[in-house]
Each structure stands twice: as structure tokens, then as C-alpha cells.
């Protein structure tokens, strides 16, 4: 097994003349909860799209659990779970039907038992037989997480998971991230703007500005250096207002 859960080497992504991601090199170890900070359009979602095999980088290489996301995408996909910014599910189907369908695609064994356990873990058994189209944002987020962890991936990608959630929803999400990391030993890669959430859940952070990684460190080092999450916010703002060479 590879020593790194996620590794990228000089990955770039261009759309015509626009460079969305510029030679990103990143190493994330197993067990980390990595917070990827950056303003809108910094390239965070592009990074996640590449790591989840949805996009092919125009340059460079990336691996998830040692599997190349381009040349060995099927094996890479077996290692990952993905929750996009807006959780997209089949609206006309119930939560259980969505999970059953996606579980079948992932080749989950003993599917019904796994679905029950997952819904139990995320405390949303009551949603099982309701149509997804009727769910609130928070409920969708839970089922979105359920589908992403159904096959017990080693790495979980969350793209702006707290976007649009109320304070209760954000607390629930934070608790779930900590739980998944502690109980299921998942490495978590989380795109976010929310400094407070990063300070409460992450073990390491990276800051992306105009497609370039401008800072990466453990949260402990950052906090030791800057003291509190308010100062962390100042660090983030200063890094994001710098012109990238």
C-alpha cells in the first residue's frame, strides 16, 4: 500500500487560456483531515474533480492510495467517496433506493445490511423510505454522505460540505467528519471557505490562490504560530490577496 493517501505531482488544468490549476504538488497522509482553503475560482473544485477521476489534468500526475487517477481510474474510484457541493441524488427515488443503486454500482456486498448500518451511523434511518426530492439541505447532506461512505472508502472528498447549512446542520456535519475519521479511519479531503470549520475539524490545511498552492502545514503548527482561528483567518486573507507570481 502507498504511504500517501493522496499525492499530486505538478498537476495543471487549463480551459483554453484560463489556467484553473497551476502545477499543484500535494502530499496527504492516511488519517489526515485536510482542509483545502481558497476563494471562489481558486481551483479547489478542479482539484477534487481530478482526484475523483472526473477530469483529466492537462499536465502532471495524481494518485489516490497509490492508484493513478487517469491510467488506473477504476481502482482509484474503489478507494474514494465523493460528496459534491450541492448533493445530487435521484430525486424521484427514496433515500434507500438511491443507496441501493449506488451500492450496486460500487459492488457492495451484503448491501441491505451495509445500508442499514450506514444510515444508523449517520443517524438518519428515518429518511430511508422518503423521496429524496422532499429533503431539506441538511437531510440531503446526510444521504449524500451515506452514499459516499457506503462502500467504506479509504479517502472521502467533500466539496464545500457546509455550504448552505444552518448552524445546527454545520455542527452535525462537523461531528460526522470527526466520527468518520475516528471510527472508520477515513482520510478526509475537504474544500471549504469556512476558517472556523477548518480550525475545529482539520488536522492539516492547504491554501490555494489562483490555482497555486501558497501554503501547506499541519493545523497544529499554524495554530502554534498564529494562536487562534481569528488569526488563521487573517493568514488566509493575506495569502489570498497576494499576487501569485
Amino acid at each position, binding site marked *: 500500500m502507498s504511504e500517501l493517501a493522496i499525492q499530486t505531482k505538478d498537476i495543471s488544468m487549463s480551459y483554453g487560456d484560463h489556467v484553473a490549476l497551476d502545477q499543484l504538488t500535494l502530499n496527504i497522509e492516511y488519517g489526515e483531515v485536510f482542509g483545502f482553503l481558497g476563494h471562489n475560482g481558486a481551483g479547489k473544485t478542479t482539484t477534487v474533480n481530478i482526484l475523483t477521476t472526473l477530469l483529466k489534468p492537462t499536465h502532471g500526475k495524481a494518485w489516490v492510495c497509490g492508484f493513478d487517477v487517469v491510467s488506473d481510474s*477504476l481502482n482509484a474510484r474503489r478507494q474514494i467517496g465523493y460528496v459534491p457541493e450541492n448533493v445530487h441524488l*435521484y430525486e424521484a427515488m427514496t433515500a434507500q433506493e438511491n443507496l441501493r443503486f449506488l451500492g450496486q454500482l460500487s459492488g457492495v456486498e451484503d448491501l441491505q445490511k451495509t445500508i442499514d448500518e450506514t444510515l444508523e451511523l449517520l443517524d438518519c434511518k428515518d429518511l430511508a423510505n422518503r423521496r429524496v426530492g422532499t429533503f431539506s439541505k441538511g437531510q440531503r447532506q446526510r444521504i449524500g454522505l451515506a452514499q459516499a461512505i457506503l462502500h467504506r472508502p479509504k479517502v472521502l472528498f467533500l466539496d464545500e460540505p457546509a455550504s448552505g447549512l444552518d448552524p445546527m446542520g454545520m455542527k452535525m456535519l462537523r461531528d460526522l467528519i470527526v466520527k468518520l475519521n475516528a471510527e472508520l479511519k477515513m482520510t478526509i479531503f475537504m474544500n471549504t471557505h469556512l476558517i472556523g470549520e477548518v480550525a475545529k475539524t482539520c488536522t492539516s490545511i492547504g491554501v490555494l490562490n489562483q490555482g497555486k498552492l501558497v501554503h501547506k502545514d499541519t493545523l497544529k503548527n499554524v495554530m502554534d504560530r498564529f494562536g487562534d482561528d481569528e488569526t488563521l483567518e487573517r493568514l488566509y486573507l493575506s495569502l489570498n490577496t497576494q499576487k501569485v507570481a
Partner: protein
Amino acid sequence: MMISQLIAIAKKDIQDALRTRTIFIMTGFLLVASMVSIAVTHTAMGGRLPSDYSVLEAMRGFVEHLEIIGSALAILLGYRSAANERGHNTLALVMTRPIRQRVFLAGKVFASVVLICGCLTVVFVSISVEIMVLTGVGLSTLEVAKLAIGFASTGLYMTAFFLLGFLFALHLKHLSHALLTAFSIWLVFVLIAPQIGDTLDPDNQAVGGLFSQLSVPHAQEVEIMNKLGTYEVIRTGIEQLSPSKHFERLTFALWGIKGSYIGMPLSELLSAKIIDILWLLGYVLGLGGVLFKRQVNFTGD
């Protein structure tokens, strides 16, 4: 694993079509149009259906409904199959699973072929019963076989148009452009090209045939037509491009609508129409080839 994934995708799509009643609406529409056309033909002929040779002759209007309505419904089915995934951004959800793109596409195509066959089964069984009730004549084994071959040809024809709608809805940046483009092509190949082929035929310029009206001897007719060689190549070329024309030629021959094929043994008839069968197969294989070859953009960027 690949087979179980394919079945899971097909099952999901079929359940979705049943749940949203799409397939019921499509079947109902085609069924009503077909049954009305048979009844109208029967009435127009003073209740004297069938002719001496084949009860299936009553299906001329039905063929035209399949050509026009069937192909339009198939485009809508294809568009819907891809637009549902793109519109709800569920492509990314599926494609972060360990599934190959071709298995995903095969599952969706398989589901739609099942839905098309289901729709056609209801329509073909209903019109067969209608013909037997109206004429009071049962269908012979040969007629049932001809109906079955016609059923398969219709399935092939509709699958080609399903693939057209599906391809555009899957690959064009804007979904609204996809439907517009697919229907523009439909307009050209289903309505315009066959008409051009017919209206530009020199012999079709007068009722009963131009040469016959002018009492032109056959040898002279051949001589005139030889002078129009290039023109005829272009005219038939336009006609050949239309899948509707091939479908029409095949079914008209099969069901005895075109008189020269009445009484012809089935094997001989199929040999005579092999070009039309190959064209229909070619459309499906060509469009299927493009579908499975092209990389799908799963993020919508």
C-alpha cells in the same frame, strides 16, 4: 461486476420511465395514432379490407405514423435519458463509482431498447387484434412472421433516433441546443429528404407517371433517364440518406403495401430488401460507435 452494474443502471432507468409515466404517454400516443389510422383505412375502403392478398396492406398509415411519430418519440426518449442525468448532475455521482463509461452507456441504451420494445409490443399486438376484428380474418403464420420482422425493423429504426437524441443531449454544452439539433436532423432526414427524393423524380411530375402520360415508349424513356444520370445519382443519394425511406421501403415490401412484393416468398423478399436492412443497421451501429467512442464530460465544465 460489469453485468450487474449494467443491469442496475438499466433497471433504474426503466423504473424511472415507469414512475414518471413517460413510457405510458409515449405508448398511448403511438397506439392511438396507429389504431385510428387502421380504422380510417378500413372505413375508406368501404369495410373491404383486406385485399385478395394480405390483411397487412391496411398498415400503410401505420408505417407513416411509425416513421414520423415513432422517430420523434425515440428522440425524446434519448434526450430524456441523458438530460435527466445532466440536469440533476448525477453523472458525477455515478462516474465516481468503479464503473466504466461504456458500461454506464450500455446500461442506458439497454434500458431504452427494452422500453422501445415494450412500447412496440403493445402497439403491434393491439393493431393486429384490431385488424383481425375489423376484417374478421385471422393472421396466417407468414403474416405473423412478417409482423415480427417489421417489429424488429421498427425497433432498429427507433433505436437509431433514440441514439441521436441521446448523443446530442450527452455531448452538447447546452441541453436546449441538443433537442433543437436533434429535431433539425429529424426534420431533414424524416420529412425533407424522402420528399425531395419523391418530388424530384422525373416520372412523378404528372399523375399516373410523366412518361406514360406523354406516351413515351420505354426505350426512349430509358434514353432520357440515361441523360439524367448525374441528376438521378444525386436524387437517389438524397433519398438513400434518409433512414425513414429505408424503413418505409422495407415495411412496404414486407406488409404487401407495395404491390410488386405481394406473394413473393419471404426469403426472396428479404434478399431484395437487404440494402434497406443494412442501411438501418448501419445507422444504429454508426451512431452507437460514436456514442461509445466519445469521452463524456462528467463535470459539465
